[in-house]
């Protein structure tokens, strides 16, 4: 009899370290990853890397864990791989640690595991180690995932905002706002959700492509929490240059713009999980755009602005109607309007 036929939901006993824990790992989790790429069950896993390597860690607590276009599993894999990719590293190995709330459906856990498996295949990354803990009902948000990721550098230098010079070109790889709006709409059960889908995807193909520019590539970031506005401000903060961007140049899909408008949100401040912001030299701008356009995920990429010496440390936005103002860091919670 299958494990989930006897146990439909996670119980505290699944996290006890005893027989039921062993059964959960061996019969539910392990089968998703068993194969030539997955090690035998042991306390730790061995791997080797060549040359410069990068390591990152992240924790995923998305609410709700399932949303159109993905779930917490695919998000954890792609999110961690993207943190490596934007540093110019090829994602190689991941670890996954689950914190599951008592009462979480084992059927849903299997859906998460299936997404993890598929995302790991898409991103060509191997899952080397894992852990499972169970917390009492009411003490967790269904399921949380913590990851670590290791990648091998494909360039010989560190990408950094300190490499940015006046005139450098800023690019955005894909339309903004899809992930944040989709999750928010799913959380609040808003009807607009039916036509929306998260952009959750691996950015490595785009990053690898831009790395071919060599030192003309200055810096890359995935525009996650806080959206493009937060990343642009992080790039400019405390620097001797500022960034000038043009609102109407940002790729934004009409349905996302409409949904954000209804919710009173600014698309530039909304989280993305499949959008790369890159800064390249002035000369390499059009080549970088070509490189992005040649990849499926970068077909709607746009040049959105440039680095300037005029406003050091600041991000300046030219608005749709040609006004100019500071583009600030997003502040406060995403509270709805009251009138």
């Amino acid at each position, binding site marked *: 009899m299958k494990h989930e036929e006897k146990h439909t939901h996670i119980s505290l006993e699944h996290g006890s370290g005893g027989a039921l824990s062993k059964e959960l790992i061996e019969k539910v989790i392990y089968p998703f990853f068993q194969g030539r790429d997955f090690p035998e069950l042991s306390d730790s896993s061995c791997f080797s890397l060549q040359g410069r390597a990068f390591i990152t860690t992240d924790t995923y607590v998305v609410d709700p864990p399932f949303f159109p276009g993905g779930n917490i599993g695919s998000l954890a894999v792609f999110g961690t791989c993207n943190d490596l990719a934007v540093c110019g590293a090829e994602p190689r190995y991941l670890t996954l640690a689950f914190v599951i709330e008592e009462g979480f459906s084992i059927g849903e856990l299997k859906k998460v595991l299936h997404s993890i498996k598929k995302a790991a295949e898409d991103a060509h990354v191997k899952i080397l180690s894992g852990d499972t803990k169970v917390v009492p009902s009411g003490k967790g948000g269904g399921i949380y995932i913590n990851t670590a990721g290791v990648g091998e550098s494909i360039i010989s230098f560190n990408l950094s905002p300190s490499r940015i010079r006046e005139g450098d070109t800023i690019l955005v790889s894909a339309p903004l706002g899809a992930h944040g709006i989709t999750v928010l709409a799913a959380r609040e059960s808003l009807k607009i959700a039916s036509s929306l889908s998260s952009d959750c995807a691996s950015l490595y193909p785009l990053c690898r492509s831009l790395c071919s520019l060599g030192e003309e590539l200055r810096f890359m970031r995935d525009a996650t929490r806080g959206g493009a506005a937060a990343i642009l401000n992080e790039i400019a903060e405390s620097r001797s240059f500022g960034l000038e961007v043009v609102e109407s140049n940002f790729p934004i899909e009409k349905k996302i*713009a409409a949904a954000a408008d209804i919710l009173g949100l600014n698309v530039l401040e909304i989280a993305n999980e499949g959008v790369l912001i890159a800064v390249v030299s002035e000369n390499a701008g059009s080549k970088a755009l070509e490189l992005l356009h040649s990849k499926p995920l970068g077909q709607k990429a746009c040049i959105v602005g440039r680095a300037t010496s005029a406003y050091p440390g600041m991000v300046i*936005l030219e*608005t749709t*109607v*040609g*006004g100019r*103002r500071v583009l600030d860091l997003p502040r406060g*919670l995403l509270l*709805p309007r*009251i009138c």
Partner: protein
Amino acid sequence: MLIVLKEELHDRNLAKALIGEIQKAAEDIGRELKIMEVCGTHTVSLRRSGIHSFLPDNITMISGPGCPVCVTPAGYVDNALSLLEEEELTLATFGDMLKVPGSGGISLSRYIGSGRVRIIYSPSDLISMAQSGEKPIVFLGIGFETTIPTIASVFLRAFEQGIHNLFLYPAFKTVPPALQALLSSPDRNFDAFLLPGHVSVILGLEPYRLLEKPGGVPGVITGFEPIDLLGGILSILKQLRAGENKVENAYPRAVRREGNPRAREIMNRLLQPSDELWRGLGIIPLSGMRLKAKYMDFDAGIRFGLPEIRNFEPPGCICAQVIQGKALPNQCSLFGKNCTPDKPVGPCMVSSEGSCAANFRYRELPV
């Protein structure tokens, strides 16, 4: 269709043409002009679209008392806090009220983890909240004519259903009496009103006719997209140039002459006009909405014996002047230093629609 319209309302060429006309009109008038945007959403839209950056130098946009959080006295927050301290109840509120400090510097957000303060997104949630338990639920009723009808309909439903554990603590405000108070102010310092689009959807044009009397000022009902705003400003300038003070509707795609009589009827069934204390403006006659005698059992102020609401301004904070258009946010010594959206001192920095918050968030470029 709506999306196409939205794009047109951001059209750069159209904007350029309007700006050209605005510059011409401003030049013809030739003197310093102050236009008060009465509504908080206008304040945000003007700042967000960067319209300030290309208005002629002799035009200043000033904020009015149109952000519901900003005009709520600190004493109201004090009373709400005392309810939590002294009574076994749950407070329900719109999110923007959470961070407003009372006179002791404490805000409702202190209680957010306790489960005793609940943020609601739609007033209709109040019914199911009340039905799910016995404990009293007090709703902090703030807002203008835009918000009041929805809240009123919920309490009328609660009355019909005999719900006894739901209470309203009203601090509602109505716009026309505030406009009258601003007009009659001895140190009035504005030349025209950009009238609120959303409020006008409910009110229509008639309640603004007071502006057309001798001594009045131009009033133009305006929408919230950049082209709407530029169009509204241009209509105001044309009136000023012609020496007129008329009420105009520059937002006809949303506002009808008669407004929304049904919404007004719902509001007036539950509530009746009352004198109301406004932060910064003091008591304005008949500018509030209190429960009618028939529905008095809903009144949290009576049920829990709350004291009269006091006015209080934090030391150094000039929100009271800002919402009367008598000072600009950056003239406050706290602005952007001791008072930021992350750590607000006054209500205009708390509310996303407050003038200080909008001026901080969508700052103009340094000169």
